[in-house]
């Protein structure tokens, strides 16, 4: 048996409409987890504590979830945010193009995605790369290829570490990184999450008091912030005419620098161009409609257009190369362009739910399941927690239940999830992980302007209004506009508890580090021992 690091401990989501391949891949991945190795573990030891962490969790059994439909996969991913480390998806699927799924996952969840296909045509592989796939495998897939998929997860983590380190504050830079465990396996039974959480709470509170003059703080593009950005861009009119300076002026956010806006604008443009390229454009009807037809990525376009209006249209025209698409674009855009902003706004505002469950509703859009989540106890917990309870009691609710769930997490809960619909203990731990971080600071969130919860909330009702197909549409639409808001959403939660004042009044430090914890040093040894034992 060849020695090598295997995707042990990784939580893999496999998406393929071919049931035969699903079965095979599942077996292959599971097989990978039986083969562990200490060699690489020891190598990494020298690279630092956070990598050590990564490996610690890796020595837990791998969890494979299979999924036959792209939409189901998206639903799963959104439901269990941070529930997966990597996605492997086929390119050809009946309900949704694999590349589209790739885009969604990459933008919304920032997970590494591996594409696979029986077709190795250059154009397809190129398309995969352009859409952000971190690898492209040809079927039939070999074990040796699957054994090393962990590299993509690690690579992403390393990038995140570098990003965070790049914006470190003066004090506690080292342990800042340490605290930000970037492995995806936050639900590994490290057990001391509460403690870590308090530790980090303290850490961030301390850091928020310090000004980082020498190093740039990374701007967190929260939903609200991105919204302002988009509004500013739209106001200026044409995407390519909108310069960072103008946008900055319009946004009127004191701590935001021109550089922040410039880089965000660049990303935004890239995103837009990727959306528009190779896709047919359909009229945005103003409502949430099921315009789904698998070969066409209309919903993304329509969704994109709704907020972008003339600016995106102009930009679209500028980048449009495919003549086939130009025709419908030119026909539909003028009318849709006119209609969109008011309707879009209306849709948005109109959907503000009356409740003030603030920040936590940001988690809800991910749960765009048409069938009620109440049927699944662990997720029910999250749902009811999120939706029903007013913020103050939310925090206490979490505080009370967190310990018990911590204990749950202690037991190994890596059940192989053959039924993607089945809630596992892991789910609950994963979901609650999110709670842990944000809940106690809900009080901070309430002090924020209500516009933030309000504007976040609009995503939620849309999810529940439409059917399964529509919800993804909604989110493509929504996310088409707020793609950074999504990452911002997560950031938003975390930054809440660093700034007790309003979100926009002071620079939010970049605190996105996922829901992961650094185990205590003694836990390291524990993990090491376990790892030794396991392998």
């Amino acid at each position, binding site marked *: 048996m060849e020695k090598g690091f295997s995707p042990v401990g990784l939580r893999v989501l496999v998406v393929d*409409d*071919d*049931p*035969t*391949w699903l*079965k*095979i891949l599942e*077996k*292959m991945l599971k*097989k990978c987890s039986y083969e562990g190795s200490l060699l690489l573990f020891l190598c990494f030891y020298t690279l630092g504590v956070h990598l050590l962490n990564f490996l610690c969790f890796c020595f837990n059994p791998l969890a494979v979830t299979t999924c036959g439909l792209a939409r189901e996969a998206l639903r799963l991913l959104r439901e269990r945010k941070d529930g997966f480390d990597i996605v492997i998806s*086929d390119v*050809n699927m009946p309900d949704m193009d694999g590349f589209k799924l790739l885009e969604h996952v990459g933008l919304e969840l920032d997970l590494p995605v591996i594409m696979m*296909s*029986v*077709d190795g045509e250059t154009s397809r592989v190129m398309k995969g790369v352009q859409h952000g796939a971190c690898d492209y495998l040809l*079927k*039939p897939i*070999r*074990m040796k290829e699957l054994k090393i998929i962990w590299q993509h997860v690690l690579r992403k983590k390393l990038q995140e570490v570098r990003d965070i380190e790049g914006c470190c504050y003066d004090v506690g830079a080292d342990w800042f990184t340490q605290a930000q465990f970037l492995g995806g396996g936050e639900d590994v039974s490290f057990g001391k999450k509460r403690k870590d959480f308090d530790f980090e709470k303290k850490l961030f509170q301390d850091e928020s008091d310090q000004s980082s003059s020498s190093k740039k703080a990374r701007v967190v593009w929260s939903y609200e912030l991105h919204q302002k950005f988009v509004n500013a861009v739209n106001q200026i009119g044409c995407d390519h005419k909108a310069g960072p300076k103008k946008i900055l002026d319009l946004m009127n956010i004191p701590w935001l620098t021109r550089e922040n806006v410039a880089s965000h604008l660049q990303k935004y443009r890239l995103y837009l161009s990727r959306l528009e390229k190779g896709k047919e454009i359909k009229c945005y009807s103003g409502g949430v409609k099921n315009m789904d037809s698998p070969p066409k990525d209309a919903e993304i376009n329509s969704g994109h257009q709704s907020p972008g209006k003339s600016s995106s249209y102009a930009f679209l025209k500028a980048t449009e190369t495919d003549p086939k698409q130009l025709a419908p674009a030119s026909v539909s855009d003028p009318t849709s362009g006119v209609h969109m902003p008011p309707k879009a706004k209306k849709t948005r505002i109109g959907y503000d739910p009356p409740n003030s469950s603030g920040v936590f509703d940001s988690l809800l859009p991910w749960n765009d399941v048409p069938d009620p989540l109440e049927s699944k106890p662990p997720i029910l917990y999250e749902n009811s927690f999120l939706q029903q309870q007013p913020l103050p009691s939310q925090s206490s609710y979490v505080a009370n239940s967190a310990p018990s769930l911590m204990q749950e997490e202690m037991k190994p809960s890596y059940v192989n999830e053959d039924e993607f619909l089945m809630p596992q203990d892991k789910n609950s731990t994963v979901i609650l992980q999110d709670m842990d971080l944000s809940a106690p600071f809900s009080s901070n969130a309430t002090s924020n302007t209500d516009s933030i919860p309000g504007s976040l909330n609009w995503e939620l009702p849309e999810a529940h209004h439409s059917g399964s197909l529509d919800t993804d549409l909604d989110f493509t639409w929504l996310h088409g506009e707020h793609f950074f808001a999504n990452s911002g959403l997560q950031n938003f939660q975390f930054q809440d508890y660093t700034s007790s004042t309003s979100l926009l009044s002071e620079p939010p430090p970049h605190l996105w580090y996922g829901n992961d914890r650094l185990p205590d040093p003694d836990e390291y040894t524990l993990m090491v021992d376990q790892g030794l034992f396991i392998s």
Partner: protein
Amino acid sequence: MQRQVALIKQSLFDQGYLDEQFMELEELQDDVNPNFVEEVATLYFKDSARLINSIDQALERGSFDFNRLDNYMHQFKGSSTSIGASKVKTECTMFREYCRMGNAEGCLRTFQQVKKEHATLRKKLEHYFQLARQAGPKETARRSK
């Protein structure tokens, strides 16, 4: 008995019905899934039958939507790679070529071949698995080479 099973399997490889993928599947078979290969094969034949039906219907309609046909065949080919159905795969590739050329006649002809190879393989594998089961679990878990 076991030797017979081994010989049959070897001939399947030699005659090009199966390729290395089948061996990979055998490698995956273990105590947890002692009948893994057979299960996969069953799944494949069930799924591919459905695809064949779809293609049949599409061809019968006579409209020759080559894009659609190509899509179906792409799926079918992908599926066929899963168990290493070598000859089937070859015919699939040919079919797709005809699709790309827009050659309806070629498509029809090749599809008959696809079906033929598919049916042949199915029979052979069914026979093989039957014997293997009779011969005992040891045989199926072992590599042929």
